[in-house]
């Protein structure tokens, strides 16, 4: 039974328009970049509306305009049929718009209750606000499966629960329209399913949900309608039931894309890398990687599945020579030093390990350096880039960069452009080009397609498979289960710094892997 409170508010709003939000002719430019061009969209009340598009298509700009972070250069916003101006987020909240950001905005050492009332207190004394909030929170939790302990500290909650607090914050502020920006990036499949159940429940109570995501599967499963953005324009709005992932992908990219990864069965050879009891402590002395052991053979892709922050990053950093570790790592029969001055990135490269790091912007690239300087990054001692004992041969490096840019389809193919001027996908291609072109025996690759547009994902996946087919070993870490399932020959699931078990992609499913990612399920 819906509570009287919510039903009553619904009635008093008595909107004449069937649309919760209408945007008419919204345009926004940053300098010479047109981020939004004449956007028109009408979102019917009581629906879940998906907005998809590649990185830089203008989704975030549009939502920032709706939430009052930016002001549109031109155009009109209508909420429930009435024109509104939204100069700041307070106005957005007053208009009934709530936003759940990709990166939560919660005070870590406050309780759930304190976070919920923060900024929405009734007066200087907190007790009455807290009591009122406790009651409302209880009602909301029961109604929408939004169970969280109101007295728990945020820092003690899982990511999925923290997200629920964000949703509760919006509902407590009486949001009728809820915008979620890439909400599942940090969730396990199970948590994501739970989130979607909550969202459907909210919709059935008459709320309007706007879901921004780049995951086609979520769009197909959850939304009623979907709008596609490409290069600042709204290219289409369709009923989800009447479309397919393939046609959505085509609308996003502007050409046909291959969503399925095509690969031949693995031709597995000798053991390339053998890892035994590998453990890593972080700078605070906390053990992040708790003794993992596995082998990778030539010609296979070993996928590491897991929710971000369960030791995968430390695994890559230990193998890549960035973090000191304990245990035994043997590459091509030779043991690698895991501590001391010989345990560094350069020594690992010399040994035949290439590393595409998870975070290309802070690890893999120097954003202020040009593309050609970045192509030499980590390989600046390579004899090919030296003129003589003293001087580097920058011309050779530039020529090599131009060649790599052609092979790996980096756009624009201008070696002198700084890395920060390239799109996320093209930045990733620069890193991939640099690391894969060495023909390494072992490729470490973390989140190969995070923030990368669909066209480039296809290309990078093909490169990874080509390396594997040429008889090299690949260690793939990704939080995208789809990616792990389609690329890997074997899958290890990590949870809390340990390996929960090994599965073959053909003999498992997302549900089982999801359980293991959440720390359940036997070996």
């Amino acid at each position, binding site marked *: 039974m819906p509570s009287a409170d919510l039903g009553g508010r619904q009635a008093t709003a008595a909107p004449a328009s069937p649309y919760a939000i209408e945007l008419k002719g919204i345009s926004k430019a940053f300098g010479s970049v047109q981020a939004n061009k004449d956007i028109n969209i009408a979102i019917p009340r009581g629906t879940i509306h998906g907005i998809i598009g590649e990185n830089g298509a203008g989704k975030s700009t549009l939502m920032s305009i709706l939430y009052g972070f930016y002001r549109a250069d031109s155009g009109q916003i209508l909420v429930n049929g009435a024109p509104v101006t939204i100069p700041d987020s307070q106005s957005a909240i007053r208009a009934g718009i709530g936003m759940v950001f990709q990166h939560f905005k919660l005070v870590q050492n406050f309780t759930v209750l304190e976070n919920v009332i923060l900024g929405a207190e009734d007066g200087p004394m907190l007790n009455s606000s807290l009591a009122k909030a406790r009651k409302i929170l209880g009602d909301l939790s029961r109604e929408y499966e939004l169970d969280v302990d109101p007295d728990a500290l945020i820092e003690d909650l899982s990511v999925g629960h923290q997200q629920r607090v964000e949703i509760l914050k919006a509902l407590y502020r009486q949001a009728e329209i809820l915008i979620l920006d890439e909400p599942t990036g940090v969730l396990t499949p199970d948590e994501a399913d739970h989130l979607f159940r909550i969202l459907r429940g909210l919709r059935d109570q008459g709320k309007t949900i706007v879901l921004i995501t780049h995951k086609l599967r979520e769009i197909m499963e959850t939304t009623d309608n979907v709008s596609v953005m490409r290069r600042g324009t709204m290219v289409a709005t369709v009923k989800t039931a009447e479309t397919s992932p393939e046609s959505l992908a085509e609308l996003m990219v502007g050409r046909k894309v291959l969503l399925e990864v095509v690969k031949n069965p693995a031709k597995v050879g000798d053991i390339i890398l053998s890892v035994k009891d590998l453990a890593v402590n972080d700078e605070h002395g906390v053990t992040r990687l708790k003794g993992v052991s596995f082998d990778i053979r030539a010609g296979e892709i070993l996928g590491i599945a897991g929710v971000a922050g369960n030791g995968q990053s430390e695994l890559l950093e230990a193998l890549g020579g960035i973090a000191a570790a304990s245990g035994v790592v043997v590459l091509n029969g030779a043991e690698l030093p895991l501590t001391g001055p010989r345990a560094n990135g350069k020594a690992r490269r010399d040994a035949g390990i290439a590393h595409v790091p998870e975070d290309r912007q802070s*690890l893999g690239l120097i954003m202020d350096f040009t593309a050609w300087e970045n192509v030499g990054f980590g390989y600046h001692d390579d004899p090919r880039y030296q003129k003589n004992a003293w001087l580097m041969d920058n011309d050779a490096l530039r020529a090599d960069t131009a060649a790599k840019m052609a092979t790996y389809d980096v756009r624009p193919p201008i070696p002198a452009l700084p890395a920060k001027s390239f799109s996320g996908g093209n930045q990733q291609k620069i890193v991939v080009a640099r690391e894969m072109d060495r023909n390494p025996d072992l490729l470490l690759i973390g989140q190969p397609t995070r923030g990368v547009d669909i066209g480039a994902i296809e290309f990078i996946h093909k490169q990874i498979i080509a390396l594997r087919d040429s008889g090299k070993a690949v260690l793939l870490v990704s939080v995208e289960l789809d990616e792990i399932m389609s690329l890997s020959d074997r899958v290890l699931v990590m949870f809390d710094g340990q390996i929960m078990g090994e599965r073959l992609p053909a003999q498992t499913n997302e549900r089982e892997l999801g359980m293991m990612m959440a720390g359940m399920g036997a070996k």
Partner: protein
Amino acid sequence: MTKLPTWADVGLVPLISLTLAALVSAGVLLAIGQSPMQALTVMVNGALGSSYAWGYTLYYATSFIFTGLAVTVAFHAGLFNIGGEGQAQLGGLGVALVCLALPWPHWTIALVAAMFGAALFGAAWAAIPAYLQAKRGSHIVITTIMFNYIAAALLIYLLVNVLRPDGQMDPASANFPSGAHLPQFQEIPILQGLFQRFGADGLPRLNAEGLPMYQQVPANVTFFIAILACVLVWVMLWHTRLGYAIRAFGKSEKAAVYAGISPLRIIMIAMLISGALAGLMAINNVMGQAERLVQNSASGAGFIGIAVALMGRNHPLGIFLAAVLFGFLFQGGAALGLETDIPIELRTVVQGLVILFTGALDQMVRMLLGMFFAKKGAT
């Protein structure tokens, strides 16, 4: 923010900043009842109006080039070396010890040896803060500032108790032997003609032996070494593996570790080079001009190097130009004090304004220009 065209970024921005500094300086002069035009004329004449004036301007500029390069090399490694002053004083100690050690047969040999001493002592003084930063995480800004004070105290102790010859009153070392005398501009054959003295009758003045007489200027062969240092620093930073590693480390320590660049190694090497460059300044002032080691020999050039590096956008060519500008301000300011009743403190005010506008406020100019260019690009 819109990216400016390169010409505007490196040319227009400093020019506008300087104009603003000049305008505010003019306002200060007006406020104390002086004529800005007269002051400008005196400064330009006094610093640039004659070969004699240039002989002083370039002398100061030489010192500032070394200290500016010192700041720049550290800066490219992401380190803010405020210790140029102390490193230059220690460089002076190295020069003095070398010059006083032997009756040098020829200045060229003395110069090479003294350069070695200056660089070694300057580098050693930078090595301790560098090690503390790399190993212990002690912030290099704090430690290098403290090391300036320690250097000053150490130098006073050594000058008073060790280096001062018996019977001498002032805290200074003995005069260097004549074999360690560096040729000043009026002693360099090609430049000599510029500094010839003429009598009121327009005829060359001759000394007792009938030889032409020359004006004495402090600028000396060190100026050419400074230019060479600019070129070498440029080659090092942009054309060697070491320079690549220094710049990469300076942009992102995390990424540098990923690439296998050792933070300890880069911090140490960059600071050793930086300290050596600051130390080399002593060749100019201690060996080339004073020819003995005095108290407070660096006389603030180490700090001016920070402004020079900021204004020169951490590029050797920019540093050369900025050093000449500060040489002009120094010498022009001295001329103001000599030839007008404008107080000498005004020199410090003008320098301060130049530093304020070119260093601290140049982002403001850049932002305004960026908005201007964005508007131009949009229409």
